[in-house]
């Protein structure tokens, strides 16, 4: 394993107008590891993920993907220099993203959703792209739904197609933005299983989640954000084991009612 982390975030600040959403985040996500971002709503974890995907432009600070600067680089005297647009795409192409709202393209079938970028971006022949897409759908257990439109699929199936769509482009890093938050518990399970299988293949994953049980069992590292600050980070044992940080104790109490904390 190389020493460069897959994702390296330094001094990241994001402000929307007067509101500071991220307040100086430093974070390393290890290669081949699952890093879980947890914390209360509004703590900035989704914004952090979106900055790493470059869907939001951070106000200050640096992000490196596989050692390559994303969007901004440090100049000779440490000043922040904007990189040209052309420098963003190659770095971003190493990253796949799965959204809370799935964001499947409604006018394309499951197969179309997975194969489209292979044709449009990678320049593959439609037939080859579809064969490749079919293999990805097979992996998430949905080859039988290839010709269905997103509106004909359950939420869990849609999210699995979305995962297949991201994986088809062979990213080195997968970002998950609350991938199960709009699913009922039964469907949540099938998506988490796909993510567990993916983690076993050694994929680097950064997961924003409210599924504490998943984070504790699959995450190599847990990062707890609160009010835009990185409050605690460490292995699940360090973060969830006793004695706990009082803020984590308080956060976990809210899960006790749902029985999730008993999984720890």
């Amino acid at each position, binding site marked *: 394993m190389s020493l460069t982390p897959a994702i390296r975030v330094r001094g990241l600040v994001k402000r929307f107008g007067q509101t500071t959403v991220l307040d100086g985040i430093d974070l390393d996500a290890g290669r081949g590891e699952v890093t879980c971002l947890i914390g209360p709503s509004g703590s900035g974890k989704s914004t952090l993920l979106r900055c790493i995907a470059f*869907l939001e432009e951070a106000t200050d600070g640096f992000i490196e993907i596989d050692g390559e600067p994303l969007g901004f680089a440090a100049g000779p005297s440490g000043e922040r220099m904007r990189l040209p647009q052309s420098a963003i795409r190659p770095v971003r*192409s190493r990253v*796949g*993203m799965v959204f809370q709202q799935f*964001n499947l393209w*409604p006018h394309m079938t499951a197969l179309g959703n997975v194969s489209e970028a292979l044709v*449009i*971006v990678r320049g593959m022949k439609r037939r080859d792209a579809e064969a490749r897409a079919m293999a990805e759908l097979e992996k998430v257990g949905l080859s039988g739904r290839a010709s269905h439109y997103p*509106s*004909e699929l359950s939420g869990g199936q849609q999210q699995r197609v979305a995962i297949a769509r991201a994986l088809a482009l062979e990213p080195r890093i997968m970002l998950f933005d609350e991938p199960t938050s709009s699913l009922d518990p039964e469907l949540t399970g099938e998506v988490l299983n796909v993510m567990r299988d993916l983690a076993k293949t050694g994929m680097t994953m950064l997961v924003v989640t409210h599924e504490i049980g998943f984070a504790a069992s699959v995450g190599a590292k847990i990062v707890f954000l609160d009010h835009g600050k990185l409050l605690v980070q460490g292995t699940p044992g360090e973060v969830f084991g006793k004695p706990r940080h009082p803020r984590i104790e308080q956060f976990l109490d809210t899960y006790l009612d749902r029985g999730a904390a008993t999984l720890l």
Partner: protein
Amino acid sequence: MISWKLFSLLVYAAQWTVLYSAISISIGFVMSAGICSATLSRNRALAFAGKLYVSFFRGVPLLVQLLLIYYLLPGVGLDVPSHVAAIAGMALCTSAYQAEILRGGFASVPRGLVEAAEMSGFSRLAIFRRIRMPIAVKLTMPALISEAIMMLKSSSLISVVGVVELTRMAQNLAASTYKPMEIYTAAGFVYLVINLVLVALGYGLEKKLRWGRI
């Protein structure tokens, strides 16, 4: 009642109504995609140019536009044949309306669908062509069909540049037969039939695009 001979003359003229409208609406649609993307552009000058275009061609009556093209352009040395003036006038006019309809559609394309395409490495052009445009067209299909119907009816105005279409033919026949009531009723009937066919085509298209809610 009017004779079959008169009626067949109306149907013959209706061919031109359909042809001129179909060509203008199609050209206008292609133009509207460009104008719409200009108005939505981050480039201020391009956005302004797009808005100016829309304001002008929506703000000036089609009849005046047709007359301007037909009488003004020859004045600066551009000889414009009737059929070119007719198609140009209608296409320019409808492109402005269609661009505004599409703009509403583009605004309704969920941001997340575009973000998913960005994360998949799509270029801006690819996002426009493969994601935003098809969804905007689906969302605005009823309004676009409605605009096509409006345009087909407005095609009666192109008689001012010397094109004999359905309405002009009806006027000519009414003048020569002294049967305006019958002739205009028949002409109205022909317009109605054409538009009903257009509506049916529209429904067919909407059905084809029925891939669910957005």
